[in-house]
């Protein structure tokens, strides 16, 4: 089945009226996607540490049990850290959602196919790892449902969203790691004051 969804539209819909959602993005295209949807101090786009987006989401979800945490990452990034699904499956934080924007390609290295292009089923893996909800999303209606699940359902939640393999203009977030960290901590923990992170 050919994918019809556009990644930028999917991420924009998921982040629409995001309320107090905390957002982490895997390196590459998903970091550009969340930035294109509107940069925020409560977004933490990554430029490296491939394979760790889901685990960063777990750490944040455990530290902030009253906040909703959303990890938006790519299929290649998720594939590099599949063990995280098992680790999250043991902890089962109710406030964590992981959404894989799956274009079946390594978008930053020349659009080579990933394992998902060959039928590897990430949503089934998440289900097998004990995620309470795990879905494969292919339609706009599915994206709308996913958005309300991210804000409302008790997780952990996993979704694999099939999107078209598109080469899009880069929309780059700040790339200074200290800036990204400090602005996030300041907005989350100190009402805009930068104190905790330099503690």
């Amino acid at each position, binding site marked *: 089945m050919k994918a019809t969804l556009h990644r930028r539209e999917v991420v924009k819909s998921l982040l629409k009226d995001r309320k107090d959602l905390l957002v982490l993005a895997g390196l590459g295209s998903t970091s550009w996607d969340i930035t294109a949807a509107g940069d925020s101090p409560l977004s933490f786009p990554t430029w490296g*540490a491939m394979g760790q987006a889901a685990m960063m989401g*777990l*750490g944040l979800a455990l530290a*902030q049990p009253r906040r909703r945490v959303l990890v938006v990452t790519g299929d290649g990034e998720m594939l590099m*850290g599949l*063990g*995280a699904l098992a680790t999250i499956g043991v902890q089962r934080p109710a406030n964590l959602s992981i959404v894989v924007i799956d274009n079946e390609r390594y978008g930053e290295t020349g659009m080579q196919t990933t394992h998902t292009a060959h039928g590897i089923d990430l949503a089934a893996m998440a289900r097998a790892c004990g995620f309470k909800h795990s879905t494969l999303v292919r339609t706009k209606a599915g994206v709308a449902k996913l958005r309300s699940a991210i804000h409302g359902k008790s997780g952990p939640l996993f979704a694999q969203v099939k999107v078209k393999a598109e080469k899009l203009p880069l929309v780059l977030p700040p790339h200074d790691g*200290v800036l990204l960290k400090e602005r996030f901590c300041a907005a989350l923990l100190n009402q805009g004051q930068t104190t905790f992170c330099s503690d």
Partner: protein
Amino acid sequence: MWPEKVHKELSSAGVRVVGYVPDAGHKRLIELCRADRKMRAVVLTTEEEGIGLAAGAWLGGQKSVLLMQSSGVGNIVNVLGMVQVCRFPLVMIITMRGEQGEFNPWQVPMGLATPQVLEAMSVSVRRASDASEVAPLVAEAFKGGTAAAVLISQSVIGIKSFQEQRAQ
């Protein structure tokens, strides 16, 4: 016993998240952390996950520690780049393998390379050769606010005995 003292230091440093890969040398400390209601012990499939976990916990305002064996240092090298570039504080307590008396030669290369690999990624390294040194070094590691590793020598935890294991 050093594990009790280290657990006390973790408590007073305010550690809430403990990432670990099961390890014989850390057995007692892991048990203490798991039994501590203020700590969330997170068993990992690979040490690399512990770096992501620690970074995420820090973003959420919680301190963490990562417990592992020296072989795990080889699994975290690239992601230590994030720790450096974002200046995430990170404390790792690492039990050594591959030192003098090691029976398993497969443990030797990574054991020998452990301090250099960490230092190459800008982690400050301190080594405890005696049980009495472990807890003070851990306390010190939390004060710097940078990436620090405390290596626990095999002279503290003992050499893994394959003969004993066979007899069990």
